[in-house]
């Protein structure tokens, strides 16, 4: 085996830290750390090339360039301007109103998408520029959208819950129902955050008075843009397409609207595609190295050893969940969320079950911790998406992100201390 798990972990984590410190791009830092570990292990070095390929072979991720492109085209074709006008008029007078709209829009979109970054991409494309136009700090706008986008995995459907349901042998539709309660609660929490911060910081729109005729005119202007989410919803709920395919249907719809209204030129499409490709590259280049990094740790049984270690410390379910939560915060900083669930569930679930923790509660906790992982640097995919759309560096967003991460951490604590929030839906469905 060459080296043991502890040595391997020491090598790759110190290498990762070093690379990040000197400023190597995040995805590539994970790759370099992996190669450093490989060098001391008997695993052939070709592992890195092979995993860079297979680590990106993830079909549902195609929704990310899809929704980014659709959003970019909507902005270029000026379709969003009318939508933004409607939103301004409707909630412009409420403190933090646009933030609340963003969170609610994320919650709505989450009911069709099972992915966090895809939700961020779809809503961010429109709402970040809307908030910036209304005078919200760009970093705040990006952070709120990144946080709202995490709802994608908690509000059903949810890609991680499907995986968890299969591995933990729980009913997936019932898990979905269990996610709805904490999901809606989180919509309320994040909306409250936007309202309070909006009030404190004086974030509001034009101050224009809302009258019914004005609203009607704005609504009429925005009708084609408003149809877009309805079409995407319809396409998915009538069983016409998967969410991945629906993202491209959204692209097509925007193109048709743009051409019909003569607001979109072929050169706009070219530029939008190039921008989307660049964004996709910068965001998803992290996937292959993150997979290589996680898989190497798994091949050295690091998750198993951690699970056993935690299990030996205590048998109190609440304490166990707290420790597992801590572990998941750490894992969430450098690992991709779905891999974390695939790698850690088979290891942690038996330990928690033995201590008498409810597997449904653990599933919801896993998802909430995954949401936090979407936001924590260095590997925070939602932050990547939001910062790319807002054209800001992750440091610039960080300041606005910290309070939101704190809110989510508190929320995770609530999930741990009050199991009923997570388990109510499941047990109501199963009648137990």
């Amino acid at each position, binding site marked *: *085996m060459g080296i043991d798990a502890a040595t391997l972990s020491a090598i790759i984590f110190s290498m990762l830290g070093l690379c990040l410190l000197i400023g190597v791009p995040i995805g590539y830092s994970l790759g370099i750390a992996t190669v450093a570990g490989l060098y001391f292990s008997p*695993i*052939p070095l*070709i*592992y890195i090339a*092979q*995993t860079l390929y*297979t680590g990106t*072979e*993830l*079909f*549902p991720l195609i929704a990310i360039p899809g929704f980014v492109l659709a959003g970019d085209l909507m902005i270029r074709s000026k379709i969003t301007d009318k939508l933004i006008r409607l939103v301004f008029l409707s909630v412009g007078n409420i403190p933090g109103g646009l933030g609340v709209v963003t969170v609610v829009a994320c919650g709505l979109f989450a009911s069709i998408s*099972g992915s966090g970054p895809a939700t961020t991409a779809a809503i961010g494309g429109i709402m970040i520029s809307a908030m910036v136009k209304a005078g919200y700090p760009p970093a705040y706008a990006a952070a709120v959208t990144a946080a709202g986008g995490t709802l994608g995995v908690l509000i059903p*459907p949810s*890609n991680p819950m*499907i995986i968890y*349901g*299969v*591995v933990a*042998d729980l*009913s*997936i*539709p019932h898990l979905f129902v269990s996610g709805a309660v904490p999901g809606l609660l989180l919509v309320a929490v994040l909306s409250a955050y936007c309202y309070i911060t909006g009030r404190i910081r004086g974030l509001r729109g034009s101050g224009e008075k809302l009258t019914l005729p004005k609203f009607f005119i704005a609504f009429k202007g925005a009708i084609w843009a408003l149809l877009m989410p309805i079409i995407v919803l319809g396409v*998915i*709920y*009538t*069983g*016409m*397409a*998967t*969410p*991945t395919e629906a993202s491209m249907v959204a692209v097509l719809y925007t193109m048709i609207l743009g051409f019909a209204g003569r607001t979109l030129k072929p050169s706009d499409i070219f530029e939008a595609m190039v921008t989307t490709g660049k964004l996709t590259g910068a965001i998803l280049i992290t996937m292959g190295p993150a*997979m290589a990094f996680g*898989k190497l740790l*798994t*091949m050295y*049984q690091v998750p198993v050893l951690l699970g056993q270690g935690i299990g030996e410390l205590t048998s109190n379910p609440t304490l166990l969940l707290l420790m597992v939560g801590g572990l998941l915060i750490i894992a969430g900083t450098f690992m991709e969320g779905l891999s974390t669930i*695939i*790698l850690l*569930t*088979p290891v942690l679930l038996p330990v928690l079950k033995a201590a008498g923790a409810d597997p449904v509660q653990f599933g919801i906790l896993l998802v909430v911790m995954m949401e936090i992982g979407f936001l924590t640097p260095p590997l925070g995919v939602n932050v990547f998406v939001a910062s790319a759309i807002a054209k800001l560096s992750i440091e610039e967003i960080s300041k606005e992100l910290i309070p939101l991460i704190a809110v989510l951490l508190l929320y995770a604590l609530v999930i741990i201390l009050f199991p009923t929030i997570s388990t109510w839906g499941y047990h109501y469905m199963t009648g137990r």
Partner: protein
Amino acid sequence: DDYVQTPQKTFRLAHGNAPGSPYDLGANRFAELVEVYSRGAMKVDVYPAAQLGGEQAVAKDVQLGVIDMTAVPTQNASMWYKPMDVFVLPFLFKDRFHVDAVVEGPIGEELFEEYREASGVRVISVFEYGNRAPMNNVRPITTPADFAGIKFRVPKNDIMVDAYQALGANPTAIDWGDLYGALQQGVADGLEGPPQNMIDAKFFDFLKYYSYVDPFFGVVIMIMNDDIFNSLTEEEQAIILRAGSEAGQYQRWVSAKSHVDGMERLKEKGVEVNIVEDRQPFMDAVKPVVDKYKAEIGSELVDNVMAAGN
């Protein structure tokens, strides 16, 4: 004491099915047997649930020597040697005795040896996925005509796609990552697989009819990187092969049993289960598909496999 040694050699065995599934039971039995027969000198770590990647990706990893072993259905490992697709021919096997006769007999031995030469991976055990029967929410399948117009998610394999098309269904591609939602929302009407898979993947939540007629029997090969195998001592090689053979027999028995139990459990979940007694109309419908691929796979091989059931 000197009876149980600390492990000298550890192997990684990855597979794509859930913990506790027939795959997983077989893989763990293999790991136990290797450990017992080597008196603890050899150890096999099992990685279930695609922890180390999807089936094709892991098969490639085994070829490259990154992972030592994996259990993979033949259609996801036939890219290196087309005749391996013989197992995917519709209605090839009469029953499990027929499967045993092929995979444990001279036909299997010769085919797996050719496969090793073409791929650089060695077949060390044969598992089964089992009888792949259709499950859908349009109507129960009793005759080939019942397939008409049903959108079936079928794996990416020409023979399987052609066979479902010949039966009158609309075969369609849906990636695993999107599959659950796609079936739930009705993007596809159904899919095919053994009963245990429908339970493990929880498709019973929205698919109503499970019809036990099995165009395909999933043969699964456990493959090991040949260079790694050759680097072992003769004694160690013998242990791997013996454990592989015994674990394979055990796994195929567990899986066969899971088919019977599985149909009962599907009924308990509210699925309408029907067993098709007369396979002949279905066999007639897919006959052109068998003829079409016979030459590509090798007609002698196909004839021999068929004859082994007599």
